């Protein structure tokens, strides 16, 4: 929508948010203090949300903020409450030089794969159905209609299985947190 009548504006913001996302991601993995790292992750998530909104995927963008901002807050609390870490300067990476080298190579391989994929085009099986028409988006169910309808019709089983998975995690957390009575 926006890219039709303000191409320069659109391009500028695409590169701006991409830059923010990449820089924050690098800062996020290089911080030693877990709190600082968690906060940089929030910035990454925000920049990604902005990119989604620019692609007219407002729902995904908002969910990105809603889910991840909340989740990172929980991570933050775990760090503050549960991990009794020392001062950040005392923390050392337990992996040696070879570990870092292997991680770097693996990252490069992933980037190369992404590049190859984006050049070669996505296989048909992985591509999504055609984007909903503008009339559908302006209809009574708005932008969530085209997401909700397939989710609760074609992919209902997968959706319900995901919720069972989450339930398992919740029950597991309760069992672990519950005090063992002697």
């Amino acid at each position, binding site marked *: 929508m926006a890219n039709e009548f303000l191409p320069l504006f659109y391009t500028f913001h695409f590169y701006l948010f991409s830059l923010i996302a990449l820089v924050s991601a690098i800062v996020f993995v290089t911080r030693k203090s877990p709190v600082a790292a968690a906060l940089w992750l929030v910035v990454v998530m925000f920049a990604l949300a902005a990119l989604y909104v620019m692609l007219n995927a407002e*729902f995904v*963008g908002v*969910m990105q903020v809603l889910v991840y*901002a909340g989740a990172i807050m929980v991570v*933050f609390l775990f760090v503050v409450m549960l991990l009794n870490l020392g001062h950040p300067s005392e923390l050392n990476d337990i992996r040696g030089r070879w570990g870092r080298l292997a991680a770097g190579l693996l990252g490069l391989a992933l980037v190369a794969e992404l590049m190859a994929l984006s050049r070669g085009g996505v296989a048909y099986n992985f591509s999504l159905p055609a984007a909903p028409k503008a009339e559908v988006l302006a209809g009574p169910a708005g*932008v969530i209609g085209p997401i909700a309808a397939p989710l609760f019709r074609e992919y209902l089983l997968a959706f319900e299985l995901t919720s069972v998975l989450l339930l398992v995690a919740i029950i597991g957390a309760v069992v672990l947190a519950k005090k063992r009575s002697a």
Partner: protein
Amino acid sequence: MIDPVIFAQMGASQLDPSTTVFVIGTVVKMIVIFTIYMVGVAYSTFAERRVSAWIQDRHGPNRVGPQGLLQVAADGIKNIMKEETYPGYASKALFILAPGLAFVPAMITWAVIPFGSPLPTPWGRIDLVVADLPVGFLFTLAISSLGVYGIVLAGWSSNNKYALLGGLRSSAQMVSYEIAMGMSTVCVLLLAGNVSLNQVIAQQAHMGWNALLLTVAAFIFLVAAFAETNRVPFDLPEAESELIAGYHTEYSAMKFSMFPISEYANMITASAMMATLFFGGWDIPFTQWDNSGPHTVLKSILTFGSFATKVLFFVFFYIWIRWTLPRFRYDQLMSLGWKILLPIALIYVVVVASAVLALDASGVARGPMFGAVLFGINVVLMGVILFVLDRGRLISPAYSRLESVGVARLKNASKGRSTLNPAADKGA
């Protein structure tokens, strides 16, 4: 889901403005909203002091300017002139960032709240909302979940045990009540059939306000909104009797002042959300005149007045509650959120969903009749909650905790005091 005629009338009675008009209009709206909002925040701090004085039979600030109206400016100047202090072992960057992070989310939410019917101008129709996002409602939820960052970071970065405890309390409280809040608003979405705030308002203009159709949800939302804004009776994060000043113990001058400002900003935003989701937004009650085309300037002004009245009422309600109720204990707060509000909200979603399904299946059109049936269901449910489930345990007047003998003694004492009143004696 919404009557298509009404929806078409609300949306497209005039031509869409051009891009230039859209951009200029948006900038003007941003400036106007920001100004009104900041003045509103400043004067709600003043209102808090005057209303509390009125409730406690005092005068309150009345010296600076007529009726003390310039007190706000005096406070602002004082806070800017004061010295800023930094705790020695604070994490300085976050310590400076936190007050801003507490304030900004409350302000961003206003971008999507519609505050009047569309304004006709010679250059095209201007919608009275800064950004009419198609996901408006979800946007407000996402942004309100960010408000806690400022408070938690303030608590953590101060490197003070009381501040940290305040911050942790705040986060636990917000995470708990956010769930009940989200669940209570699911019912609103069930009726509106969309997440666009304009359609939520259109549905209420058509069927009746959600406060009547979804009373239980409105009640849960109200309680959760108090917890989300850290207002009494949920102001555990800054409980001064236990935590000195909670998360802002180490702050001084203007940075300290940012926390009360963000509290009032959040309060106004929560009031606006309450008005939009449950009290018809800018809809004027008992008439369809305001939400049918063609749009006029008079309609825009009157609907804005209607919206402002509702928001101001809820701001007053917040203040009223603060000077009426005592603070919860921490375990009471948690059990209220998880064991009472969340189950009720979950059951209520099922009840409302079944009712909507049954009404749709039996061919009742979405309109006043549909609303009347839902209202009936809500009256029954509120009765069940208050008189069967609760029975005066949580929601009750203070005297219900006393023995009946004690109540009789108090009543006698109050009678005795009224006879001792010199004014009454003079008359006798």
